[in-house]
């Protein structure tokens, strides 16, 4: 009898385990409900130098939110490398957080899954209205003609960061404003084991940001008006080649950068091994690596010869940034809206963006003196006048991978001393385009 009881206990336990593995879902398909009004789960992206730094920054703010609303927020900071897959898994299983960060370039791709709450007039009204946000930031929150899939949280743009001491030692008075100057100055800086410019050659996302800007400067685009890929047009080939040539032909990027994909170029910059990096809101990372404010200068990213940063061919940055999205099947829609209202409120916008060195996408917060420094002024001006959003098409994330990987392979060729020719660049881009179209 005892044996039977033991056996049935085992069976019951395994059935329970099975039931909990399958069940416990909160998928209710509709526009969210409020069955758990006292709690929220929030996936924040890794913005600071590391995950504990983010936890330390966000914890007091979440506490503040709890004191005001009585809603407890469970925080998880997700590293960039995992974020997209985590979101996809959450979408497929319906077991996601209530509120989450997404990279703004993924907006249209994730919008296509239908898992994110659309920000229609009613939802925007709940957080103070759409007009509070900068227009270009809203433009990178979903496909044109649709309600945005997310709300802008932190805005960023690329800038040229340069090491003042290395410039002085090499007798260079000011940072390059055009690519021709970049190459001339770069050759003076690249000697004695030191290099002019850093790159994250093995990081497809970073590659795509640079390729996108070069493509604009060549008057090209990676998608046509109908949303079809046009990766291997002569202008795009020339654009990608110009970027990779900074290592292959001009030799102002160290070959070792071809294997960088964990922000090693920032470390090299802080250690005085490279004199310049093209980066978005890098100040807090430099400080974490031991640099002091004033050790580095900030200038706009170079443009083609004779030009000054502006719209059209003189675009010199993508509209970078983080958006805040709500999972459609949240158990606490009201709470999620309150949380988004809190995070995009003037007060939090000033505080969080100042901490992360980003620019508030909320107009009222931008005028705060915290964003009047040299760094912020360059980033803000770039965002306002010469940044363009990456293509807001559903295939955006595939595009990042396909073209970003092609550039990675070209950097590998350049590093290994293999020739990087118009032909070899075209072959890689054609292959990337065929992968997208299949």
């Amino acid at each position, binding site marked *: 009898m005892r044996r039977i009881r033991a056996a049935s206990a085992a069976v019951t336990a395994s*059935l329970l385990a099975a039931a909990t593995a399958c069940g416990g879902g909160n998928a209710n398909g509709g526009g969210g409900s409020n069955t758990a009004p006292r709690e929220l789960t929030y996936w924040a992206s890794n913005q600071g130098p590391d995950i504990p730094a983010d936890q330390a920054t966000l914890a007091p703010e979440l506490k503040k939110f709890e004191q005001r609303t009585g809603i407890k927020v469970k925080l998880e900071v997700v590293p960039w490398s995992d974020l997209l*897959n985590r979101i*996809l898994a959450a979408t*497929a299983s319906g077991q996601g957080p209530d509120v989450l960060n997404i990279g703004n370039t993924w907006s249209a791709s994730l919008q296509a899954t239908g898992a994110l709450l659309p920000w229609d007039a009613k939802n925007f009204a709940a957080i103070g209205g759409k007009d509070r946000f900068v227009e270009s930031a809203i433009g990178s929150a979903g496909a044109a003609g649709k309600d945005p899939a997310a709300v802008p949280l932190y805005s960023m743009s690329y800038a040229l960061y340069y090491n003042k001491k290395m410039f002085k030692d090499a007798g260079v008075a000011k940072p390059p404003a055009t690519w021709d100057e970049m190459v001339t100055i770069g050759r003076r800086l690249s000697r004695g084991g030191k290099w002019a410019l850093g790159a994250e050659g093995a990081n497809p996302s970073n590659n795509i940001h640079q390729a996108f800007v070069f493509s604009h400067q060549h008057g090209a685009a990676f998608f046509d008006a109908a949303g079809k890929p046009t990766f291997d047009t002569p202008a795009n080939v020339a654009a990608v080649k110009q970027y990779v040539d900074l290592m292959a032909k001009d030799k102002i990027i160290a070959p070792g950068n071809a294997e960088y994909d964990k922000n090693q170029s920032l470390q090299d910059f802080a250690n005085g091994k490279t004199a310049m990096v093209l980066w978005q809101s890098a100040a807090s990372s430099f400080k974490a690596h031991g640099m002091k404010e004033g050790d580095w200068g900030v200038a706009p990213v170079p443009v083609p010869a004779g030009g000054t940063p502006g719209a059209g061919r003189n675009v010199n940055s993508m509209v970078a940034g983080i958006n805040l999205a709500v999972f459609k099947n949240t158990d606490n829609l009201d709470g999620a809206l309150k949380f988004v209202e809190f995070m995009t409120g003037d007060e939090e916008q000033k505080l969080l963006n100042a901490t992360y060195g980003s620019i508030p996408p909320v107009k009222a917060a931008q005028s705060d003196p915290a964003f009047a420094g040299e760094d912020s002024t360059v980033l803000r001006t770039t965002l306002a006048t010469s940044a363009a959003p990456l293509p807001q098409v559903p295939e955006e994330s595939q595009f990042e991978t396909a073209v970003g990987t092609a550039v990675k392979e070209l950097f590998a060729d350049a590093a290994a001393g293999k020739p990087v020719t118009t032909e070899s660049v075209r072959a890689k881009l054609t*292959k990337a385009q065929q992968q*997208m179209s*299949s």
Partner: protein
Amino acid sequence: MTNVPPAPSSLTPAPPGGTAGPGRRGAGRARPPGRRRRIALPYLLLLPALLLELLVHLVPMVMGIVASFSELTQFHIRDWTGAPWAGFDNYELAVDLNRPVGEALLTSFLTTCRFTLLSVGLCWLIGTAAAVFMQEAFRGRGFLRALFLVPYALPVYAAVITWSFMFQRDNGLVNHVVHDQLGLGGADHTFWLLGDNSFWALLTVSVWKGWPFAFLIVTAALQNIPKELYEAAALDGAGTWQQIRRITLPSVGPVNQVLVLVLFLWTFNDFNTPFVLFGKSAPEAADLISIHIYQSSFVTWNFGAGSAMSVLLLLFLLLVTAGYLLVTRGRRHDDAR
């Protein structure tokens, strides 16, 4: 042609632990409760394992097979059962060598075959050599044996990420030793994680990680060989090499057959090593099929095509395993005769 009648009931085996017969046939006569429990118990005990097997293996496998016949992309991931039916389109895409997807899959498959052959061969060779060497008692044998098992005991992630640091071009230990200390390979540091060398870097890590398992298994098999065989052989004048060839290798034969099969399956499917070493997209020379399928599914978000590739891989592995078992079973029967 007549239909074969169902097997007579007398051929059914008698239930264990009791006399078959009257109790079974006697209509309306209930079995004693104790016996019923005894019959039910094994099944009850098996049930949890069966249920978990169903949940952990069979259900996902069936889901994967269904997905391989659908157009599953980000548009349908939220409600994947509603993805449009694709028939054999995904399979055609995967095997069409005139299109980039099929061509890349074939390249990756061939790379994986070459990699598996080399890795399994080296793991087996090093593991067996070490096991034979460690048969003789000597000072420090226990310590050495423990040391050999370190790669097997370490968490894969930690070990492989350490290797990735060591293979870094500018700051890695490998180049420091090869170029700076030994003065080999010229003045310029070599790239190990980019280009063609990445294959050799991956192979090194795979063998480092895999051979201790071979060592462990072969050691266990060696310990089962009676000492008398060697003593008799020595008396007959057989040297060390002859003893290894005539006694050791044949005696560990059956274990080796299983060992090679397991190493083959593990290596062919290995995902962790290339993923930690190279990230989401491996260099072409080290683009193993597991990473390749991952990229098709999770990076380019074509889950249907990725599933089709997985099913093809599963079929290939099943075929190879079945063929291997048939051949080795035949050999075992020959040995028995």
